[in-house]
């Protein structure tokens, strides 16, 4: 049940003969994009072990810091441990160097740490999200050592479904409510179609002052009637 697809935001890979095929991380849908309102992060909350749904209330957004957020896709333990490790590294950096680490620096740190264990079976497809003095930063970091700076990305088995909603309605000029609604809609449709995603939709907003949790919406009959109304 591993699905092989191209990542759409890596446009240069699409034009080469041997494109890098990235494995999809099981059983989740996470997405993030940057717009005028800030960085919107939205995740589902289902954990599946094969055909069995083991939990519907997993926290897939890891709050590393007051200004850094990471998402979880793939192996839960790997993501959780390495992002917490990154948090302690960022703390040390801030104490030594008298200023907060930049988001590109933080993503570089975790990429270098994980690259050493490249072939040992780690499974991680995470996004490092934050706001530093250079502006908003959204990086996709992989257990294979990929590190991409992107404006909008979705990771997980339901990402293809989420991309359909996200890309068709994405604009830079979205205010907070529209942007959160878009993110929720994308996750809902992904959870509806993809058997490995579901539970509740957790939405976060990241801005200059830090991150904040916007909402946590259950996917159920109410959501179905709301999104399939038209």
């Amino acid at each position, binding site marked *: 049940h591993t699905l092989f697809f191209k990542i759409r935001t890596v446009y240069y890979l699409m034009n080469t003969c041997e494109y890098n095929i990235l494995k999809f991380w099981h059983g989740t849908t996470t997405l993030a994009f940057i717009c005028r309102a800030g960085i919107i992060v939205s995740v589902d909350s289902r954990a599946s072990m094969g055909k069995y749904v083991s939990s519907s209330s997993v926290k897939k957004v890891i709050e590393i810091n007051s200004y850094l957020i990471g998402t979880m896709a793939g192996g839960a333990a790997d993501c959780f441990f390495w992002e917490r490790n990154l948090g302690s590294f960022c703390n040390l950096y801030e104490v030594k160097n*008298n200023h907060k680490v930049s988001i590109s*620096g933080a*993503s*570089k740190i975790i990429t270098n740490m994980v690259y050493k264990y490249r072939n040992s079976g780690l499974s991680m497809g995470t996004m490092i999200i934050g706001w530093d003095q250079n502006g908003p930063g959204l990086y996709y970091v992989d257990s294979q050592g990929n590190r991409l700076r992107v404006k909008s990305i979705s990771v997980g088995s339901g990402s293809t479904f989420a991309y359909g909603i996200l890309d068709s309605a994405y604009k830079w000029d979205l205010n907070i409510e529209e942007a959160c609604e878009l993110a929720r809609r994308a996750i809902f449709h992904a959870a509806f179609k993809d058997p490995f995603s579901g539970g509740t939709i957790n939405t976060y907003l990241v801005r200059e002052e830090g991150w904040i949790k916007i909402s946590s919406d259950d996917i159920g009959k109410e959501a179905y009637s709301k999104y399939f109304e038209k």
Partner: protein
Amino acid sequence: MTVNHKVESSSLSGDEKFLKPKSILNYTLTYLKHTLLNLNYLVNLYMASIKSGYDLSTATYSPEGRVFQIEYATKLVKNSPMVLGIISNDGILIFSEKDPEVSRLSLFSPEKIFPINKISAIGATGKTGDINYLIQRARIDNLSYRENFSESLNGSLLASRVASLIHMHTVYWHLRPFACSGIIGTISDSSPEIFVFFPSGLFVKCFGTAIGKQSETVKISLENILVKSSNCRKNIKEVSKALKIVKPKLNLRLLEIFSLSRETSRFDKPISCNIITENERLSNFYPI
């Protein structure tokens, strides 16, 4: 060990005056005897303190609490060509003077100001061999820092790395201290900073300094320039005026100017010839 033969003849004791050196063997024997007896006088007299062996290694202190090897290194730096650094409103300025003896009739002579990355540079005096090694290490440190943290080394981080390397060379007996001192100019978080480092491993953050020959007199005029707080471009004129007072025979070919300001998006080595000739014209125009 320097031996002055005139001194030798006058300080021979009574017995030895009769032993006039007739043969080469005789001469060498008296020479050796004399040097072995008078070792103390042959060592460099420094503030009339008898060192007798406390200055042979960096790893020994004298009973007064001084490490003589480091002081000798700083003395070398004091007699080297001058390097000057100053902060302006929108950037940093580093001036350096090349060694006139080395640059005479030469097509190119050793540089004194080196870029480390796009936003920092080091201007150093002293032994060129030591300077080259130091700059190499600073550049490698910058590369590895970029690999790990995706940022360039700048500010007090760069200064502390350079200074800790220099300090490491003052701790072990098998290494001699770096005989170079320098000025680090960086722009960190869009604020210009200047650091000075010395052969003892000390580094100091300041608004402007000068190191090398005739640096004390230049520092006083630098203070007046800093009070006005103007651009890089204006400061170049002011500093060249000050330099002209201190060194009237300064050859412009030997002067290196490095400026890093908002006008130049990345670090740029000496400015166009127009500004240099303009400085010469201005400094000749204002009589001292």
